[in-house]
């Protein structure tokens, strides 16, 4: 592989002018000829090892940590679907029936998810106020999902969720994601929506899928505008 002097600087995590100075001072086994630089990559690696300097090729650094593309709410919500009239009198039964109705999950992971959700509820309630709850497992599921899922579950009747403002919860957004980073990303976007009181009022009407997704699309646009 042919690499340039700039890439050498990148590999050593140095400024190009430092590498050029080292060449001039004869500290690095690179020779300058009239129109360019002459060096041998393996000799250079050997040299770096001798001086215990880190020599990492940037591409390798990148491929090691897999790249996460942060998804938007809308795709995750479409994947999770909107569920209506979820039955249940308390937290456990409501979660149970909601999990049962989630189409994206296999049978075993439904069981696992239910346990994880209960565990999480035991720590603190996920009812974030205004009648909205966002049940989620603390750690990602064992058969990791490839992409995040948000299931919107409108309850048959409001139930006591032990929420921060003690108001009964009428809608749950079950939030599953494959990493903490994506979880936080989706959570922050979602909390932006819930902060808007008119959205909560809108949710109370148990809107149909199309108008619900249209509303979310609106919010996404606002969010994107704020970020740029």
């Amino acid at each position, binding site marked *: 592989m042919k690499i340039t002097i700039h890439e050498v600087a990148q590999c*050593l*995590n*140095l*400024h190009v*002018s*430092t590498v050029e*100075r*080292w*060449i*001039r*001072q*004869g*500290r*690095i*086994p690179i020779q*300058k*000829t*009239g129109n360019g630089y002459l060096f041998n990559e393996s000799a250079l690696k050997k*040299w770096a090892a*001798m*001086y*215990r*300097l880190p020599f990492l090729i940037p591409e390798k650094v990148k491929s090691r940590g897999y790249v996460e593309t942060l998804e938007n709410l809308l795709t995750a919500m479409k994947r999770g679907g909107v569920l209506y009239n979820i039955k249940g009198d308390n937290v456990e039964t409501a979660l149970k029936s909601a999990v049962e109705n989630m189409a994206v999950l296999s049978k075993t992971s439904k069981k696992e998810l239910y346990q994880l959700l209960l565990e999480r509820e035991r720590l603190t309630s996920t009812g974030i106020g205004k009648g909205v709850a966002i049940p989620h497992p603390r750690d990602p599921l064992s058969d990791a999902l490839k992409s995040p899922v948000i299931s919107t579950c409108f309850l048959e009747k409001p139930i006591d969720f032990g929420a921060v403002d003690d108001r009964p919860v009428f809608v749950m957004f079950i939030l599953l994601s494959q990493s903490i980073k994506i979880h936080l990303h989706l959570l922050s976007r979602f909390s932006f929506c819930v902060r808007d009181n008119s959205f909560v009022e809108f949710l109370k009407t148990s809107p149909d899928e199309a108008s619900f997704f249209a509303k979310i699309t609106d919010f996404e646009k606002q969010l994107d505008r*704020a*970020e740029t």
Partner: protein
Amino acid sequence: MRIFQSWRYPANWTIFRLDDRLLLILVAIIVGNCSGLASVILNRALMAMFNWFHHLHHYWWIFVLPAIGAALSSLFLEKIVKEGAGHGVPEVIYSVSRYGGLLRFRSSFSRIISSALTIGSGGSAGPEAPVVISGAAIGSNIAKYLSLNDRQRVTLVGCGAAGAISSIFNAPIAGMVFAIEVIIGEWKSVHIVPIAIASVAGTEISRILQGNQIPFSHRLFNISQMDIFACVGLAVLTAAASILLTRLLRSMDKTAKKLPAPLWIRAAIGGCSVGLIGLFLPEVLGKGYHVVQATIEGNFSQGLAIVGLATIAKIVATALTLGWGGSGGIFAPCLVIGSLAGLTYHHGLALLWPSVPWVNQGCFALLGMAGLISGMLQAPLTGIFLIVEITGGYEVILPLIIVSAITTSLCHYIEPAAYYMKELVEYGHLLRPGTDARVLSDLNVSELIEKDCIAVTQNMLLRDFINIVKKSHRNYFPVEDEETGHFMGIIHLDDIRQYLFNPVMYDTVFLSQIMNTRVEVVYPDDDLSDVIRKMDANRLFSMPVVVNNRFIGLISKGNLLDQYRKELMVQTSQSI
């Protein structure tokens, strides 16, 4: 056309693609020969001038001769080649430590001519230092012609110096040790091998052209234990002499600078005074090797008072010649003063304890020389090896080491910097390899700049700023003027953290209200040691770098440490 081009760029010859060490050894031979030749030329010139002026010595007006010589040499240096007066060794050391050994081509002959004029006409100075700078300049220019890198050039500068000293004294080990101890200051085999080769080449050239003779041969000495104890006293005397010489040189220099006259008139005044001293004590004139020879052989028969007077006269004459602007080195005067001091000490001993069978006066003269060289250069090894080689007297090695060691320590105690280094240390120019000052001088601000800062404008609301903070990686945000782009100030997150969580302030506070406008800034060509001093004085972790009133990046201690460590690792590990 191709052949022509290949001649113009010798760096492209395949021979230089060979092993790096082999190349240096080959070039070292050439450099050693050239600098050896330079010293032979100076030696011949001095001999010729001595012969021309010898028969004039009985005229009364002879005392103006050193004045004419010094004035001419000063004129030559100032007007024709435009180089500074003095002997040139500090310039070589400075160039080695700061500019990778770059020296001007004209340095390779300028000091030879000027010192020939000064010394040949009777000025009290030595031909060695001028030869050192010539040799060093030859090495540097050969390296430049072959477009070698800094490290190789420094080695070749050392080779030039080694070849010159080896050739002029016919002393290969002394040349080698001098080059490493004084000029390069770093004991590494990458330097030592080529320098040793150059010493051999330089010595060989001088032996071929001038014959293999030991400059100051002597009879055998029988040294008893008493003499070794007596050496301690001699060391104190030589230390005192070298400190006197150093101080006198400096004060003469200062007095001369106060005189409102052109340089050549100052040099003439100095030369004239030396000539006047020379009327009464002709021993002080010229490089004075005949005096050294006479003392070592025991033929210097004057009594204690005369010898003591001659010692002081030689010190004064040297200070007058060099301090007032003559050109020449300190080596030869050191040898003369040292031998005279040794002789004085011997006479003094003989006077106090006449019954003790002291070793003959030549031995003390020899030890005195070693003491003075070690004291002036504060380079004990150079002193020891030089005296052993130029006198061929290995049997005096024990007292020699004692005198050298004690004199060096005493002089170091009183004058912390050696004569050659003094000016460099004063201006902070002595940058020995592997030291903090050297690492910092090699790094520069532009290599440390971090550019991933997000600039904001002064009329931005805090709310908009918080959105920027969300996306940033750094805690510092430069504030720029919207229209001109000029740097206004900087926002550090630590300073405004409390406002960030207060939503009331989001829409009421403009960035111009919370930015810090009284910031210390750095310019890209600032000295890094000054930058660090500023950081430490103000307890700063980062400072903005500004060019033409525009912010271009940030310099932080974190990145500095990273780079500093890499630089130190690359500079100090053994061999390449």
